[in-house]
């Protein structure tokens, strides 16, 4: 027979004023298997805790019930006290007789009666408690950062600075991401390349950082502290270890008409190319869709002129398998395709461009060497119209429901820089709201309007009509004038909404990390845990979690690194012992549990079973990984054979509580 101790707290008068604590202690003391039942003014005080510890030792108690405040307050306090007295901490149950009894009832008799029932339910449960030990798992002290934009770069640098090795996996041939394509950055107008490329070089030179460019994550298994990741290193047909980045091949390649994706197709590159001058790693790549040698075996020029013999037409994809303790998603964003908003005539005129294209048109390394020229005829535009919120702030049927957040500021930047460089240009911005929360942001926008004479028009554009003379008729509304305007523009710039990278959704599936309806990664808590995914060991950096500008991305990236470092600094992780476990004799291997598990904690193994007739049978059974399981219990209900149960909240424990309450 088990021996249970019951301890009823007065909590000063908080409980004792409405609950007759003596009567409760007395009534519960009469319950079978209760060896000792007593009350005390403050159980959580040191002397209260000593009272419990002494009783555990004196009566050799097997379990303890504390009738006190909510377990959310002091469950840990009492568990520690029990452990100090040599009792397994999970042999403690709390009956919540303050928040859920004394504080909500006025009638003392009624409250006392309820407190007794709650105490009985706790006794019924603790009788079925089992001693639990939190599992420990080792931590692989290495991090994986997926995505090599500014978010991934910053996170990797910070982790590496703390002394932990980091791998950056980047799907493109170079790191740098979207920021590498930008011209200037708001609100200080530093040139993006000038502040980004030193960081890219830092990554390349840091001993703790390995850059796996032109690579993609293919499979992820394991759990926090112990991930195993398969990474596909895509064939670039150039030996990364030999190529010096001299660029000779990219000058001699005869295939010259390949649309250059770095300049968004506004100029051409060769079939063998280095994306841009400051690429890291500075290694060429051969584009198999265009290379004559790879397509039909006729050419081989680059191989002949390469002085280090780096060209390798036979190169194959390889798979790299690595262990990591933590994984950071930093997959960033893409601008949406604006084709569906063709009232703006994006597909009908070359002179209707997106803001990212505008960045390239004003960038010194861009297709026009930084001179703002119309894509159609290469002439200077004299009237430019910027259109805001293209595809943002829509109903789900019409586009993205959210504000893309960065457009107001970069448009102010574009407008300001245009007016500064080309004072003869008229610049109009059609806006719905100008949203500039951020340090020095509103001042920046006001400068565009006040000092640079940018015309801000409150209203939207309804139609952009290409005219025969090459101009664009922009028909918009000026809501403050209550007028419909027609502006003859030479160039129209669309502030396209941004959306998460298309690679994010399949990655989230591999990571079992959750996403919202827009395919942004969900954070563990929107306010208090903004850089962690609900899945342990997965962290979020940058715009993959939601639209962000560079300052915000960098601060989130560093916050994310701090969380990763905190994890990697531990030698062992202590788990929550209240996890699911499967009775392999009852399990029929149906997979129902795995399909409801949000964490991928359940796997299947073939086990040999010795049958009563002395034969051996091999059956597939579920195995719960206690380090991954978070203890929600979804699987326990999904299990048709009743094999799956949850420590700490077992079927029998909950039913015992039900029985005690319904008696």
């Amino acid at each position, binding site marked *: 027979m088990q021996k249970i101790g019951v301890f009823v707290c007065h909590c000063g008068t908080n409980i004792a004023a409405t609950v007759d604590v003596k009567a409760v202690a007395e009534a519960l003391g009469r319950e079978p298997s209760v060896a000792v039942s007593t009350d005390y003014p403050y159980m959580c005080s040191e002397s209260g805790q000593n009272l419990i510890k002494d009783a555990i030792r004196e009566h050799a108690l097997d379990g303890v019930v504390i009738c006190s405040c909510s377990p959310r307050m002091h469950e840990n306090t009492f568990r520690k006290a029990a452990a100090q007295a040599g009792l397994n901490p999970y042999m403690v149950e709390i009956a919540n007789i303050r928040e859920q009894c004394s504080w909500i009832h006025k009638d003392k008799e009624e409250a006392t009666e309820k407190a007794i029932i709650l105490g009985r339910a706790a006794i019924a449960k603790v009788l079925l408690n089992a001693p639990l030990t939190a599992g420990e798992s080792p931590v692989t002290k290495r991090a994986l950062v997926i995505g090599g934009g500014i978010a991934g770069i910053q996170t990797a640098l910070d982790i590496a600075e703390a002394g932990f090795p980091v791998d950056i996996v980047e799907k493109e041939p170079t790191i740098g991401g979207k920021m590498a394509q930008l011209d200037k950055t708001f609100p200080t107008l530093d040139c993006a390349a000038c502040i980004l490329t030193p960081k890219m070089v830092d990554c390349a030179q840091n001993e703790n950082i390995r850059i796996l460019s032109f690579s993609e994550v293919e499979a992820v298994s394991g759990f926090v502290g112990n991930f195993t990741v398969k990474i596909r290193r895509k064939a670039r047909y150039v030996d990364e270890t030999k190529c010096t980045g001299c660029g000779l091949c990219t000058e001699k390649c005869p295939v010259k008409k390949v649309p250059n994706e770095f300049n968004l197709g506004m100029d051409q590159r060769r079939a063998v190319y280095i994306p841009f001058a400051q690429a890291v790693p500075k290694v060429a790549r051969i584009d198999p869709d265009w290379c004559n040698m790879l397509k039909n075996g006729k050419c081989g020029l680059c191989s002949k002129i390469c002085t280090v013999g780096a060209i390798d037409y036979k190169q194959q994809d390889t798979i790299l398998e690595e262990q990591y303790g933590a994984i950071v998603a930093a997959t960033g964003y893409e601008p949406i395709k604006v084709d569906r908003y063709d*009232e703006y005539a994006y597909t*009908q005129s070359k002179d209707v461009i997106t803001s990212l294209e505008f960045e390239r048109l004003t960038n010194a390394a861009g297709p026009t060497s930084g001179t703002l020229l119309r894509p159609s005829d290469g002439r200077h535009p004299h009237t430019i119209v910027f259109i805001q919120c293209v595809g943002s702030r829509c109903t789900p049927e019409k586009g993205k429901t959210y504000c893309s957040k960065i457009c107001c500021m970069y448009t102010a930047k574009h407008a300001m820089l245009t007016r500064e460089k080309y004072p003869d240009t008229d610049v109009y911005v059609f806006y719905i709201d100008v949203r500039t929360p951020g340090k020095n942001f509103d001042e920046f926008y006001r400068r565009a309007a006040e000092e640079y004479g940018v015309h801000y028009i409150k209203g939207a554009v309804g*139609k952009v*009509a290409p005219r025969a003379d090459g101009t664009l*008729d922009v028909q918009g509304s000026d809501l403050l004038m209550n007028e419909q305007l027609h502006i003859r523009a030479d160039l129209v710039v669309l502030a396209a909404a941004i959306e998460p990278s298309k690679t994010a959704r399949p990655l989230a599936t591999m990571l079992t990390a959750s996403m919202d309806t827009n395919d942004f990664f969900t954070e563990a808590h929107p306010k208090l845990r903004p850089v962690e995914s609900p899945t342990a060991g997965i962290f979020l950096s940058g715009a993959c979690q939601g639209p962000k500008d560079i300052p915000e991305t960098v601060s989130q990236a560093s916050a994310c690194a701090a969380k990763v470092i905190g994890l990697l600094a531990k030698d062992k992780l202590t788990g929550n012992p209240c996890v699911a476990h499967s009775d392999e004799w009852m399990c029929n291997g149906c997979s129902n549990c795995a399909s409801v598990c949000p964490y991928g904690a359940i796997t299947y193994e073939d086990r040999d079973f010795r049958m009563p007739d002395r034969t051996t049978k091999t059956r597939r059974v579920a195995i719960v990984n206690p380090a991954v399981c978070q203890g929600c219990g979804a699987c326990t209900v999904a299990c048709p054979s009743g094999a799956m149960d949850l420590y700490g909240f077992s079927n029998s424990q909950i039913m015992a509580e039900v029985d005690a309450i319904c008696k």
Partner: protein
Amino acid sequence: MKIAYYPGCTLKNRARELDRTARESAALLGIELEEIPVWQCCGGAYTSAKDEIATKLSSVRALAAGRQIGDGRVATVCSACYNVLKQTNHEFAVNPDFDFKVNNYLKGDPEYHGEGEVVHLLELLRDEVGFEELARRVTKPLKGKRIAAYYGCLLLRPSSALAFDDPENPKIMEDFIRALGAEPVLYPMRNECCGGYLTLSDRETAKRRSTAVKESAREMGADFMITACPLCLYNLTKNTDDPIPVRYFTEVLADALGLGGE
């Protein structure tokens, strides 16, 4: 193939050419347009008010009758009929209350729950004949002609119900023009309104609208324009001073197929 055909009131009167050339061209291309035996005017305009049921019943009856012919689809040529019939049919899909009330009105007639489908002759040419096949059947290609397609509003909007083509950058009529051997002229006003509904009540406003459309087509160098809508044709020819000719797309089709006579 045989398909139910809803000509609409105007094609029986002022737009007889539209009706005749549509039937003859379709027949030549293997599509028999079989007129629904009994039909009434669709009303020409679809009232968006949720509480207007009775004005949509003539369309519902036509759609219901169409079920008896061919594969149950109803073909139209006139843009207005297409718009009204298709919006009416779409309402069944999105508004159960409409379905319920319509069938209360229909008591005695067979029930109808939106199971039909409305197609425009242009869609039949694209999907059943195919523009490549059409190009092969052309005997008198319109070589060197620069033709501006005028969609107006009725074929395209609301796109949620009509789903005819991209409402901002449609291409079905341009592809049709190419199939006839001519060159399509893209001009920005091709999907803007000619002012049709105001023709009677405010002729001057309608004139300004149709003139704007024609100026846009002229600016882009059109030799002539084509349309599927009798009211658009009227506004673009009789209610404007611009002399660019406007023809029904079926007239041009009949010509190209060698049905024109000359």
